[in-house]
């Protein structure tokens, strides 16, 4: 698969759309093969092990789509993956395996079903939500990967669940399943601006409440208003006070005589 991807992206050059569409079609054809993805995948792609040298390209452009390597030929799917494929039919779009980690890619509208199944079923019993995070792949139409790292304290196995969403797509909150996801989802919202719905308390968490923009997005500059504050506080204040000019004077309350 990697060979294909490399050569393909090389051919596509700057045009990103066809590649994204290609990824989309791959996603679309995946659910049908949900039952036997290993064989299917193996038929379509060689094992990911031998990698070609990265081609030196003049402008290092962002990758067109994340690569979710399919499990290598002949590898048996673990029970947790087959269980979720059976338990939530059609929800798992793709199964991926890389350096020992299993990932299932799930349709965003079926997320809660899958998650509930993963938590409650005896063969999966993912009672511990290790992490919720996201990755941003800007040119892609569904630019965000929201990644849930699950762990089972009973069966001691791990699984990553991934959903792909666009900028405006809502993602169901999983806090009702794991209260642990509360702050983690807040951070995803804070850093990526992904719309998490049915979250009990969706506020910014690391950035100030009035912060503009979402820092972890790839199109957010590495140097932002923070530097402005250092170099030119007046401008920074102006930027900061733009939304509520009236309220700005209220906290200028000098406590010391």
């Amino acid at each position, binding site marked *: 698969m990697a060979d294909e991807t490399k050569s393909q992206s090389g051919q596509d050059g700057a045009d990103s759309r066809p590649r994204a569409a290609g990824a989309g079609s791959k996603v679309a054809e995946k659910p049908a093969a949900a039952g036997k993805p290993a064989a299917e995948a193996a038929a379509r792609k060689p094992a990911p092990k031998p990698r070609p040298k990265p081609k030196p390209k003049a402008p290092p452009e962002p990758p067109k789509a994340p690569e979710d390597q399919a499990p290598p030929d002949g590898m048996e799917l673990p029970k947790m993956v087959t269980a979720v494929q059976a338990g939530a039919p059609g929800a798992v779009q793709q199964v991926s395996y890389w350096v020992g980690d299993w990932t299932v890619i799930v349709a965003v509208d079926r997320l809660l079903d899958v998650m509930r199944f993963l938590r409650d079923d005896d063969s999966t019993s993912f009672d511990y939500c290790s992490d919720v995070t996201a990755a941003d792949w800007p040119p892609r139409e569904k630019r965000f990967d929201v990644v849930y790292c699950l762990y089972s304290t009973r069966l001691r196995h791990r699984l990553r669940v991934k959903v792909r969403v666009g900028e405006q797509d809502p993602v169901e909150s999983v806090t009702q399943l794991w209260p642990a996801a509360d702050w983690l989802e807040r951070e995803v919202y804070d850093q990526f601006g992904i719309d998490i719905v049915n979250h009990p308390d969706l506020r910014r968490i690391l950035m100030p409440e009035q912060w503009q923009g979402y820092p972890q997005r790839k199109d957010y500059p590495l140097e932002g208003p923070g530097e402005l504050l250092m170099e030119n506080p007046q401008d920074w204040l102006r930027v900061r006070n733009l939304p509520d000019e009236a309220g700005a004077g209220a906290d200028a309350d*000098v*406590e*010391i*005589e």
Partner: protein
Amino acid sequence: MLETIVVPLAKIVVLLNAVLVAVTFLVLMERKVIAWAQSRLGPMRVGPYGILQAIADPIKLILKEDITPRKADKYVFTLAPIMSLVPALVVFAVVPFGPDPFYYLSDINVGLLFIISVTSIGVYGIILGGWASNSKYPLLASLRASAQLISYEIAVTMTLVSVILTTGTLSLVGIVEAQREGGLWFAFVQPVALMLVFIGGLAETNRAPFDLPEAETELTGGFHTEYSGMRFSLFFLAEYANMIVISAIVVIMFFGGWLQPFPNVPALAFLGFVPPWIWFIGKIFLFLYVFIWIRATLPRYRYDQLMALGWKVLIPVAIGNLVVTGILKVAL
């Protein structure tokens, strides 16, 4: 004229200065003792072995900017530290440092009552200071302080009553004399009372493990969070002066004041070469050391546990002690 005004005034001046100097050195002592307990050296830079730190600290505090928060009640804010310090100093008027009238300002026949009532005024300073700051942490702390001081006051007072029952006098000189006549310190006669007064004393002076009103790790600085400079140092002085007062009370009531150990044992009569005031001050320092030692050792009580200890343990035990003392007094 000389006898009624000049001598007492001179005594007052000497005593007041002595107490204030003692307090500054007590702070140094506390820093040093805690440092040793914690395998540190403590202040070492100012003077030999940091002895002059006792001078440097007050100078620093006096020179610091004295800030009044804008929303504070200015008059009460200023009044509170004074209200806290003055009672702590006034108490020394009746503390006898030795048997002769030369060693004390006055020996009034209600000396103990005087001490109890005057030290109780000190709590107003804390309450008002916390309230006048118009800030939340000091307010919480002053609420704690008022509840704590009142509940421990009851236990301590009731325990002291049992000592009064044994001696039959409220005069501090009389109490010490009673111990000399009895030939035994009251620590051995009233051990329960000693424990109660000492624990209650710890609580009343806001010392660890009862230092809730100024629990710096919970309420930042407690009631004096908003205070700085001289006014803060007045609170500081008051706390340490109160420590000395409590130690003095414990020594007078239970450890024979200026008496040498076992005053009636002839074999120990050679101890008489030590002047009585040295005995008295030495014993006070012993207790101050215990105060500091406890602070270095113990964690802090929680507020509700502190109240529970006061009301459910100390007060019942104090009442029981009083009753037993009364019965024994009648029976014997």
